[in-house]
């Protein structure tokens, strides 16, 4: 299964290396990993796409959370979310095929951002599948160069992923269970999802 995770990380050198290293050292496969700035200059956000079964995903989540410079981990298994990938694609475009390509790009809500004597560059964003479909459609014209950013994602609704918000440390549980009650200061913590799932003895 393909999963999207986001990790809010401290904005300092070495964090990316640490995360990348952890993935390779533990044999997890990354489909894509995107790092960028957030609303808070102290933190960056990584969006990681992995193909993994449930158990591996669980490990990936926990191992990410264990890294001291990783502040918050979230997966989108059970949350409605928006995801986007951005692509620049340079196509061979003889004058005969140019208008067809422009039309296709328009259909996909892409934009032509550069035109040469025999080439066209299209900018396109959207879900990965949409970009994949476009690539297949234009392949016959001849793809000269292609660059994609990889996926970024954000949950729908008012809930945020901000590093400093109140949910900072709820990353041990999938998002759905996270609407949980706040912790009384002296109280016992709530069980983790894993604990909840565990069958108490009969």
């Amino acid at each position, binding site marked *: 299964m393909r999963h999207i995770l986001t990790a809010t*990380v401290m904005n300092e050198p070495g964090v990316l290396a640490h995360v990348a290293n952890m993935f390779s050292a533990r044999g997890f496969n990354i489909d894509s990993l995107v790092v960028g700035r957030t609303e808070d200059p102290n933190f960056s956000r990584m969006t990681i796409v992995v193909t993994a079964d449930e158990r591996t995903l669980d490990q990936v989540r926990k191992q990410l959370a264990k890294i001291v410079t990783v502040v918050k981990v979230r997966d989108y298994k059970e949350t409605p979310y928006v995801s986007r990938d951005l692509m620049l694609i340079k196509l061979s475009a003889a004058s005969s095929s140019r208008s067809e390509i422009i039309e296709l790009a328009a259909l996909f809500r892409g934009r032509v951002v550069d035109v040469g004597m025999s080439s066209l560059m299209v900018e396109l964003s959207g879900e990965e599948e949409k970009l994949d479909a476009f690539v297949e459609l234009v392949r016959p014209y001849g793809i000269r160069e292609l660059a994609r950013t990889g996926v970024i994602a954000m949950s729908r609704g008012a809930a945020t992923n901000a590093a400093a918000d109140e949910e*900072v440390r709820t990353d041990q549980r999938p998002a759905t269970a996270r609407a949980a009650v*706040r*912790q009384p200061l002296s109280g016992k*913590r*709530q069980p*983790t999802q894993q604990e909840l799932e565990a069958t108490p003895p009969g």
Partner: protein
Amino acid sequence: MSTSTSPIGAGANVPAAKTTSKAPHPVVAAPLHGAGSIVVENVAKATESTAGGLPVLGRPTGKTDRFNGMTGAQILLQMLLEHGVTDAFGYPGGAILPTFDQLYEKQLNFILVRHEQGAGHMADGYARATGKPGIVIVTSGPGATNTVTPLATAYMDSIPMIVFSGQVRSYLIGNDAFQEADVTGITRPVTKRNYLVKNVRDLPRIINEAFIIATTGRPGPVLVDLPVDVTTGKIEDAVDDTPYLPGYKIFKAGHSKMVKAAADLINASERPVLYVGGGAILSQAWPHVREIARKGNIPTTTTLLGLGAFDENSPLSLHMLGMHGSAYANYAVQESDCLIAVGARFDDRVTGNLKLFAPKAKIVHVDIDPSSISKNVKVDVPVVGDARLCLEEMLGLIESRPRSSWLAQVARWKAAFPFAYKDDTALSKPQAVIEAINKVTGGKAVFTTGVGQHQMWAAQFVRWSIPRSMITSGGLGTMGFGLPAAIGAQVGRPNELVIDIDGDASYIMTAMELATMSQYNLPVKVAILNNRFQGMVRQWQQLFYKGRFSHSEMVNPDFAAMAESFGIRGLRCHRKEDLIQCVEEMVNHPGPCVVDFLCETDENVYPMVASGKGLHEMELGIVGSAAPNSNREMGTLA
């Protein structure tokens, strides 16, 4: 922290939402604002309570001008003292000289080693023996890279340790300057956290963070890389030394619902087994382990790192389990209907073939690291938290039950399959040497080991009963660990008997530390089980490589004479009749002493679970010969 001078009132019970992002170095892991799953103790709290019996922060933190006019090196020394550091290990060099200049006044007991690897293992041995973090100070480049093996060793076994390494001036970093190495890059996978300090103003905060990270939660090593301009640079006005760890989680008590579920499972079980690892030592959970075992009549086995957490003289003790564990521990685990893992991580040396592991058992796993849970073995009741706190709560819920038929079964296994060897050679059997050491000391000493057969025999033939008395490299299996770890343990516990039970090949990997032992007159005893082989390698080559002993035979120096050349008492024990006398002489010698025990070469460690086999499919070897009939299958005794 409650007395913090931080402008935003670090430690006050304010939800840290939003405020954290505005303050430059805001609150430490903001107070318990976790919705839901995890208790992240306010670090102030976490530091009042202890990782190993020591306060982590010696004083409140916050915006302070107490460092004004001080250099980085002065700050480092002062803060080490404030954090309760009394001893450190290391080796100088150009890039760390500003710090060494501070050590000149001898406010710290500093041990000059002979190789930085030695410093690392000494700090590790010190930490395991005392529960305090081990401190290492080394220079840049080769000095720092020489600590990689000790860092990896400590990381695998979750040992609190901090390495301060010199680094070239920060403006030279990246230029391939003399003795420059990307030390944070090299050590990242083997540290819990590492830092390159870029500005002396960050140093106080980073030192506080380093101590917190090394000693709390699942402990581990931290490295702090110190460029020369940081250690020579001065702080001119107020800085904030409040730790800033927004991503750091410290699990404390387990969730009561899960503790209750675990207790219910245990109470309902007929054949429970406690399986106790190094985490029980790190969290000082051993009194609770013992009490739970006693109350519930629960047979208890430990891992290599858990040795000492349980009293092996108890009839409930199953001794060590796993690849070279006791037959009865392995049988009990395989027959158990409820396996309670405490601070253990289901390492492959413990479980054998995972598919065949504990097939009849429901599994309870108490661990502070959520990533350890269900990593290798699917757990039925996970309890995430500090082992001591979790067991404390569980203790009240455990019902007193006789479980007499299970205990009778365990007793039959114990009688039938004791650890054994045949004393049938002219030379001493290595096991006999360890038995003699155990006899003379009553197991009341701090032991360290190298890695190999002798390590396994030490685990099998010393009767462990005291926590922090077995110091050995479990996860990484680092040969050469024994001698420096013993030196570190002796520094930490100067009035106690410290014995390194070592292999000839392991010993010589770091034997230059004899000079350190001699210089500081540390009365460490070294018992070399000299089989003139990398015995464990020889065993595998004999069993799995048709006896082709490729590069495993050792041509050794005269170890006694070698010790003498360092000014250390060196003895030879070549006749098995002299064993007890030699051990007595070693133990009674007031100073450091090395004894070369000449041992039989062709001896193998049994029981042995070959790779791919289940625990119950172990080769019993000599251990099976004491069984009452020729039928050595566990089933026939059941």
